[in-house]
């Protein structure tokens, strides 16, 4: 059984279709990139999985638990965690409070302190600024915090939406190094939205290509990144620019 199963899912905003009959599966411990041009439905897919937008059709399961029709807080309880686009950290809360918001759903309350210490080990800068308000952090630090905050719910599947958005390339490297390291340590299952196929190829994993709300390609991320012609075909010129 796959960890995440998305079966024939459609999402519509009013009459405008954002996703049409999307089916995909993610195995336990796998790393999946969702890629595609603007408006391809990447964010809609994440929102549908997390319960933030309703599905018009289809079914989503996490470890066999039905996610469709549940509100986001119930989906989170079933083991799904999200690092949203734009990070969405709580700027008026302290760094440590941000980390604690998502721990309310955990049944292993004893393990929370240890996990916070672990996050601080992974991101020493967060430990240094633990009592500072999170709004004062730099973009890269906020991305680290958003990842740490998502990990603190102890998720089965973590979804990361456009982690490279608005960050310097060097910081993006750091973010991906961290994600990969965390995944290896914890056996985490990762679903990452990444517009740059080159970046996805460098990090490695399986890639699913969306376009116009449909799955139009699937395969090894590195292979996708190599196939310039294919990239061109799917992304057009703007996509290629974004990829560089």
């Amino acid at each position, binding site marked *: 059984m796959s960890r995440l199963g998305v079966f024939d899912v459609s999402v519509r905003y009013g009459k405008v279709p954002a996703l049409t009959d999307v089916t995909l599966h993610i195995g336990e411990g796998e790393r999946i990139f969702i890629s595609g041009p603007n408006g391809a439905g990447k964010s809609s897919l994440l929102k549908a999985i997390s319960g*933030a937008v309703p599905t018009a059709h289809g079914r989503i399961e996490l470890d066999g638990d039905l996610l469709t029709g549940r509100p986001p*807080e119930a989906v*989170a309880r079933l083991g799904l965690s999200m690092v949203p686009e734009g990070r969405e950290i*709580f*700027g*008026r809360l302290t760094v440590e409070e941000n980390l604690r918001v998502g721990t*309310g759903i955990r049944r292993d309350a004893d393990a929370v302190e240890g996990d916070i210490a672990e996050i601080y080990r992974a991101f020493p800068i967060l430990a240094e600024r633990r009592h500072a308000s999170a709004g004062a952090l730099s973009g890269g630090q906020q991305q680290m915090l958003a990842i740490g905050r*998502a990990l603190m719910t102890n998720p089965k599947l973590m979804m990361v939406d456009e982690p490279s958005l608005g960050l310097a390339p060097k910081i993006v490297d750091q973010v991906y190094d961290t994600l990969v390291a965390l995944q290896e340590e914890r056996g985490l299952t990762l679903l990452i939205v990444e517009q740059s196929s080159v970046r996805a190829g460098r990090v490695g994993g399986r890639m699913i290509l969306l376009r116009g709300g449909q799955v139009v390609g699937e395969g090894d991320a590195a292979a996708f990144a190599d196939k310039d012609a294919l990239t061109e075909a799917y992304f057009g010129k703007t996509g290629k620019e974004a990829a560089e």
Partner: protein
Amino acid sequence: MNTAAQLFFDAASLGGIYAMAALGIALIFGVMNLVNFAHGQYIAFCVFALIVPSTDAVAVMFLGRAPAFLLIPLLLAVGAAAAVASEYAVFRHLRKATPVAMMISSFALGFVIQNALLATYGGRPKAISLWPELNTPVTVMGASVPLLQLIVILATLTVVAGLALLLKKTRIGLEMRAAAENFTMARLLGVRANVVITGAFALSGALAAAVALIMATQTGVADVRMGGQIMLVAFIATVIGGLGSLPGAVAAGFLIGAVSVLLQAYLPLDARPFRDAFLYTLVIVSLLVRPQGLFVPSSAKPRV
């Protein structure tokens, strides 16, 4: 007699009442962008919960007969229950409605409560006697002040400190602050929308009950219209304080209390009947100068 001390106690006790009422409004606005205009009627409801339901001119104490140590928690619970019930009956069905639709519904709810009180208790104001001994003056720092004023100041400080502790130190407090900042994100982290909103309404209703206890003791009257005036001032305080900002609501409540006491004391005699006109002119000026609120950093993004 010490005029400065007298003015200070007047301002602090009036401001304390405003601050508590403003907090009740700001709490709910913070988590669900609702300006709950029924808050004034929660206050009236709590005052009437003190007496036996009847349209007789003479009020017979009901909850009001309980000793203070019972009455206070009991009435706070009544206020909390009334607010939570109204959320359950009305606002829960409007979660996805626009802020304007929710606000208008809160007006409607206010009228429903007011008319229910009117039908149950009659329209005439009733004399009630709650803790009359608290109105005896005591001398503090050369000023002669009713004991109640001191209690109000103390109660406000206790409420503000208690609320700050609750928000800072408890799980529900953390969730409420997170939800107030970004509700969707909080839910994505497993924060239950219903728990947070119910919590905000319960706290808001308990604050309304605290204001009701003070008003009932101070005025010695139960009147179905009694929440309206304070609701208006409290709403203004939340706007001046920066909608949704709890420290802002408290600060603005105290500020409005202080300004109205000072105007009352120092306006020329002929102008004193128009004190509120001067007060609201100052409100307009403050909103023109700082539309985002006095106590919000100017860099903060507008919340409405």
